[in-house]
């Protein structure tokens, strides 16, 4: 089944929130997932895989201890948290590359690298364990698949765009990945109670008039 990009963005936002991330991070995850899908990558499955790791249960352990120097966490880094910081700290890339420690789902860093590329008006390269991607903020050169986890990622200014990934206006998520996102999203929906049905939204009047 194909989905609109707004649909993938909304399910990603709800799922990320349902997985325990704060709303501001859920918004980041949603935009990032949309961006990946619009560059013909299965952003939904990438996000689903990450959310299943439940890193949000102990968020402090999965963020960089310090953003001066290399970005290392107490445990494996969360690419949503690191990605947000990468986007926030884009200007630092002008001074030196940013290197992370062990990190989950590095593909999720790509949209945040694209934010940095647009902010700095240059191309950004991202390398990890032999995988390499380049983006100028709009275009993306990257392989179809990225590892589930890598020991380190290096993000730096520069790099030449190679084969460009196609731009897509629809996403075709793997059904299993979509189902996982839906399951997380359901955690944000309140159960249907009679009280809620009567008081929560309507007029309490007949519409058969």
């Amino acid at each position, binding site marked *: *089944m*194909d*989905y*609109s*990009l*707004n*649909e993938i963005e909304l399910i990603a936002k709800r799922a990320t929130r349902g997985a325990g*991330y*704060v*709303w*501001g*991070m859920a*918004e*980041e995850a949603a*935009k990032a997932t949309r961006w990946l899908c619009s560059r013909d990558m299965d952003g939904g499955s990438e996000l689903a895989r990450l959310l299943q790791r439940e890193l949000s249960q102990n*968020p402090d352990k999965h*963020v*960089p201890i310090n*953003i001066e120097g290399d970005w290392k966490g107490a445990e494996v880094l969360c690419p949503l*948290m690191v990605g*947000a*910081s990468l*986007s*926030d*700290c*884009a*200007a630092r890339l002008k001074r030196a590359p940013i290197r992370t420690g062990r990190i989950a789902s590095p593909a999720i860093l790509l949209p945040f690298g694209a*934010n940095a590329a*647009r*902010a700095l008006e240059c191309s950004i390269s991202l390398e990890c364990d032999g995988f390499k991607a380049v983006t100028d903020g709009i275009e993306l050169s990257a392989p179809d698949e990225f590892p589930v986890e890598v020991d380190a990622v290096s993000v730096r200014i520069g790099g030449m765009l190679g084969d460009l990934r196609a731009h897509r*206006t*629809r996403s075709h998520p793997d059904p299993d990945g979509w189902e996982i996102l839906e399951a997380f999203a*359901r955690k*944000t*929906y*309140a*159960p*249907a*109670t009679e*009280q*809620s*049905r009567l*008081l*929560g*939204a*309507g*007029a*309490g*009047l007949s*519409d*058969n*008039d």
Partner: protein
Amino acid sequence: MNPAVKIERRPPSEVMRLKRLGCLHQCRLSFMRILTRRMARENWRFTRPLFDINDKGVGRAVYTAHTSERPYSLVAFAHDLPDEMRSDRVIAQAWDATFTLFDGIPAPGDIDRLEQNVPFQEAGRLHESELSMSRANRSVRLWNHVVDSLAQGRQPDIEQIDEVGYLMRTTAVYGSGKFGTADFETVSARDELQAPFQAEMLSVYLTRAFVRDLAEHAAGVRGGANATRLEPALARRLGIGNSTGLGMAPFLVHHPVLFNNWIMVREEAIARVRALESASDEECDMFHNMLKRGVLSVEQWRSDHPAQLEKLTCLKDDIRKIEKFATRENLQRDHPWNQLMTWAASTLTEEGQEWLASLILEPYGELVDGLASCMSDGNRDAFTINGAMSVRDARALIKESFGWALNIDWNAKENCARAWYVSEEKLEPRLGERFEEDIFTDASNDFEQPLAPARDGVAAYKALEQWDGKKTVAEFLLRHPEHRYSIRRAQIGAHTPYGEIHDNTISAALLPIDMLRAKLSFFGATHFDPRSDRWVRIRMYAGAPYPDELNTQNADLWVYPETAA
């Protein structure tokens, strides 16, 4: 005439209060009027390639609007709905009629596919070739009266027509990617769809034509040779209703850039007119003419809701004052519109002030209408946080939007009595009582949606106060991701002064209908008729020419009823 004096736009602290937003009226920049002006100016053609409805009123129809570039088609399905299933709520399962706006002309196979999906609405799936999905229910009493009358060869009673105002009311018009429809971004480069909600407005416009045809068809079935058609002048009085619940309220909070652009554009239009040194005789005539016609519209405005009745009383009182004050003599003074608006601010209620603000724009299409192109949200990068910003600057930005909220006791029950949430029942947006409903009192759940930007902004402000002002937002957010939402909004607010509501959206005193009305007024809705504090019925396109009548003479001012000659 060019503006000679710079008059500032009214400040957000004045405009963005919920009480005032809940008093907004349609104006030249309303989305329906933007569309009807364009359709007439560009000489769109309209055809009805299919009308296959059986004697029970069940079947399908296609209405096509041909622009010079491309066609758009409303694909309509008419159903036989049992009375007991007629509900306007999102949780309804069936409707009198269901629709989609198809991007082009549907082939028979497309219509077959749509028939397998559109009647099921949220339970169906649409493709990128569809731009909207909607449904409508009959106004049972007016439908029966009109069909009965026409079947007997009589015209329906004008008072009954005005009492209800529409034969069917839509109960949701979805677009922008929902349920598989095309994302707005995929079509927003087309001139005719660039302004907000143009596909949805076109769908409703064509729906109105279908509903008239369907009623005439039903009368023909019932009355046979005796039946007659609805007189065009009566048909024009009929708009399409819309019945709207809470879903529109979160929209305004979720889209601060878009909301800003709508409000700012209207404020800019008002400021431009206020800056005019003088008004010509022709412009005064136009104003007085629209004033007279506007009064008729207000006289036809029906509601049983106590709050709306009180507002209507105020509005009628305000209009009497306007009629006395806005004499030709007074409009011949220096900067007449500015004087009028200054007088209004100290004399009229918000209902009257906003009604007048919309009215003074009417003589100045050349000055105002071009602003319609600034009402969409084209700035995708507004979402990206500038992490290099200092903590001090971020604090200042929050204060700009939410300074009014800093001294509110956000722990006091009355200030956080409500919580917005999404129900698992068809994902209907709802508003709950935080301290009373089980779904909130169980601490293991957190169903609250982020729709209290003032409360959250103040929390972020207080956390920022604990930080060295020279540190960066990036450092702050690494330690406080819970404030990422508010920091983003604050930075968006730096460029969108009208993006935030300057009121508490979770207060015990909140009236969600104020938020609904603000949005609906920009659609161009009239005759707001609240059914509760969170539900409102409106009219769309009442008075508008039908597709076969539309021309540049009648494409714009239809919203003001014609006075007797």
